[in-house]
């Protein structure tokens, strides 16, 4: 239901992060729910990663596998497409969202589809596919419990793992009662029982099952789905036709590599050792099989992803495995919730991915300011994507592209100077503690001038504590940065050479 018409309620209605965040911040329930859930998920993740042991070795392995695959993406994606086709899958390529939508609609029309059952897919959210299907008279039913709830509410997901994080059970009971035509008690078991029964009917009558894709295995042409409810299994088992939409970067080389991803993804997302279901689908049903789809399509979607290739600052975005750990770790997300980010992807990953995919820094510029650059996202990331660095690059590119004011340009130069030296940063903080005396009123800072401008225009910053986080963790930032520089200097150098070459050829910024 994430069409072009803006839904009502707590969903994004404002046009800037500032306005949307104000809506989110005014919603007491949302704030509590987001905080509760993200803390629970974060706690689960920390417990699961500690229990497993050698967590940093696994992260590093995960990162290396993703770096290797993306660095040779033409080879592995081509191999995947050839193998999937050999398995009997109809493979398609879409450069843009519009092309992917057109292909999906053509498949639906050709199969005379009346209804489509969907399991959770961020790509289809990105494409606003439900809206498009409805425009040709095809019912699109979300079957993940949380997604089904927010679809009934006419809203968009606010968390990548728990989409209906912002709804309480009384609101959910009201929505489901309207659907049932009778009053359902606000009891989780009753509500889930109703959804099970209702969606069973939908699964059995649907013409098409539509899924996303967590990983695509190049060497065997298989696609892999992780889930807890069983709805993705229903979608890939019951309907006659299956359509899978996958981002072009979802590739891993082998089932052996899947062990690493299966170790990192569930632990990072929900703290589980493995999701209840992990399914590897290799082609449509075999001739003698009695279930599974007879016709299977995989649509490989670019939609802005390839813009990150060869870009030394943003290529690692393609390593993302969509676990949501950075959302749960982010103090800003925990405070404002997902809808405030305004795009399909929220939290630190959304703050970078949305403008990167859309290639329009100008329109999304304020989203990069919705971060405190504390580095918690990097530490939480199972494949070590330096999101906090990317947020800084994004702000710099915005300024370079002429979307910043004179004052901000000065600020960025100052920022670079300060961030270049941990000692200087500490000094500035100390200065800040003195300087803030001029602007602190009643323990908070409300001024919209100077270095806290971007932050304070949509929230009230607490005054700096006498002993700052920086003072206690003086070397953390430095460790992260130095550590990063040491891990892949060759990759970085090569990419930087490429970008210099390309800039000479094209004479412009990649994201501008």
């Amino acid at each position, binding site marked *: 239901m994430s069409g072009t018409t803006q839904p009502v309620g707590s969903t994004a209605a404002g046009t800037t992060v500032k306005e949307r965040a104000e809506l989110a911040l005014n919603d007491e329930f949302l704030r509590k729910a987001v905080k*509760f859930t993200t803390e*629970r998920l974060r706690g689960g993740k920390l417990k699961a990663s500690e229990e497993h042991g050698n967590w940093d070795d696994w992260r590093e*392995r995960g990162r290396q*596998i993703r770096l290797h695959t993306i660095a*040779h*993406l*033409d*080879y592995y994606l*081509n191999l995947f*497409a050839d193998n999937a*086709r*050999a398995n009997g899958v*109809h493979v*398609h*390529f879409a450069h843009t969202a519009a092309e992917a939508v057109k292909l999906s609609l053509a498949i639906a029309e*050709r199969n005379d589809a009346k209804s489509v059952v969907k399991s959770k897919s961020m790509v289809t959210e990105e494409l606003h596919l439900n809206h498009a299907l409805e425009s040709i008279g095809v019912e699109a039913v979300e*079957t*993940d*419990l*949380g997604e089904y*709830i927010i679809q009934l509410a006419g809203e968009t997901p606010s968390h990548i793992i*728990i989409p*209906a994080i912002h709804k*309480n*059970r009384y609101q*959910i009971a009201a929505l489901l009662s309207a659907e049932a035509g009778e009053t359902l008690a606000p009891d989780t078991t009753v509500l889930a029982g109703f*959804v099970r029964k209702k969606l*069973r009917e939908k699964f*059995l009558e649907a013409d098409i099952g539509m899924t996303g894709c967590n990983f695509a295995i190049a060497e065997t*042409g*298989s696609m892999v789905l992780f889930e807890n*409810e*069983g*709805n993705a299994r*229903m979608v890939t088992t019951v309907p006659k036709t299956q359509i899978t939409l996958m981002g072009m970067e979802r590739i891993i080389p*082998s*089932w*052996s*590599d*899947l*062990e*690493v991803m*299966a*170790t990192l993804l569930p632990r990072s997302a929900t703290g589980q*050792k*493995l999701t*209840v*279901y*992990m*399914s*590897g*689908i290799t082609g*449509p049903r075999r001739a*003698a*099989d*009695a*279930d599974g789809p007879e016709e299977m399509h995989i649509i490989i979607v670019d939609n802005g992803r*390839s813009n990150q*290739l*060869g870009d030394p600052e943003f290529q690692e975005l393609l390593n993302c495995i969509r676990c949501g750990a950075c959302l749960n770790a982010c103090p800003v997300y925990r405070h404002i919730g997902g809808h405030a980010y305004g795009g399909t992807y929220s939290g630190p990953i959304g703050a970078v991915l949305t403008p990167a995919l859309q290639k329009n820094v100008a329109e999304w510029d304020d989203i990069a300011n919705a971060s405190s650059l504390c580095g918690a996202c990097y530490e939480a990331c199972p494949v070590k994507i330096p999101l906090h660095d990317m947020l800084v690059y994004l702000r710099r590119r915005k300024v370079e592209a002429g979307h910043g004011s004179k004052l901000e340009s000065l600020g960025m130069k100052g920022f670079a100077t300060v961030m270049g030296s941990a000692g200087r940063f500490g000094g500035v903080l100390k200065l800040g503690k003195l300087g803030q005396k001029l602007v602190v009123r009643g323990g908070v800072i409300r001024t919209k001038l100077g270095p806290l401008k971007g932050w304070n225009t949509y929230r009230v910053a607490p005054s700096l504590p006498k002993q700052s986080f920086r003072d206690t963790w003086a070397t953390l930032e430095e460790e992260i940065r130095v550590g990063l520089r040491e891990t892949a200097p060759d990759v970085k150098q090569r990419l930087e050479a490429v970008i210099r070459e390309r800039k000479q050829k094209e004479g412009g910024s990649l994201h501008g």
Partner: protein
Amino acid sequence: MAETGMGSHRDWLAQLESESRAKQQAFMDGIATKLGRPRVTSAPAHPFRGAPDFWNGFEWPLEERIERFTDNFKSVGGHVERLADMEAVKRFIAAKAVELKARYAVRQNQPELAAIGLEEAMPEVRFAVWNTDREEHWMARAAEADIGVMLVDHAAAYTGSLAVLSSKDTGRSVSLLPTVLIAVVPIERLHTRLGEILVPFDEAGREALPAGIHFISGPSRSADIENDLTIGVHGPGIVYALLVG
């Protein structure tokens, strides 16, 4: 809208395929250009393939595998029983059917299950054996079943997971649609790590893989309503793993 003849549908798919193949070239060329190098057409060396070395040698002795599997499976709401032989499996399932007042059941068409005479042991239950009649609507039979019974291909103790492979005789629906799932795990199929099950899929190669490979780690669950854990949202809400031998 849709063409009715199969021929025209096939023509249409063929047309899509030729468009797809042309686009595939453009896609891959575009990727190589953006990466600033020629196309990579032979397999690159992948020094970081699979799990780290320290992990690959890791294996628990059998009794510990049983203990860890049991702990993990129970911790997510599953049930585990250790049984001496297939005769005990039959008695357990028959007693469970009576206890749960089961009326319909479905089982995979596996020789190990046929050998113990499950159907004869519970004459009051209408038993369907997967895909034994081409005319039957097998998904409907699985959907109406109170109990689904299957022999698993593999299990992994470290994550508390069962693994099942689809085939003519083993439907994906049997482990998915019934209310209660009973999984028989011959003890020699219980491994320590997921990798012991996954790596052989690479070794077997594409053509040897079935359409569906499913790892199942407990009952279907959701925490989507106020973080309140619900069991049995779409898949089976009650799952038994019977460790045999």
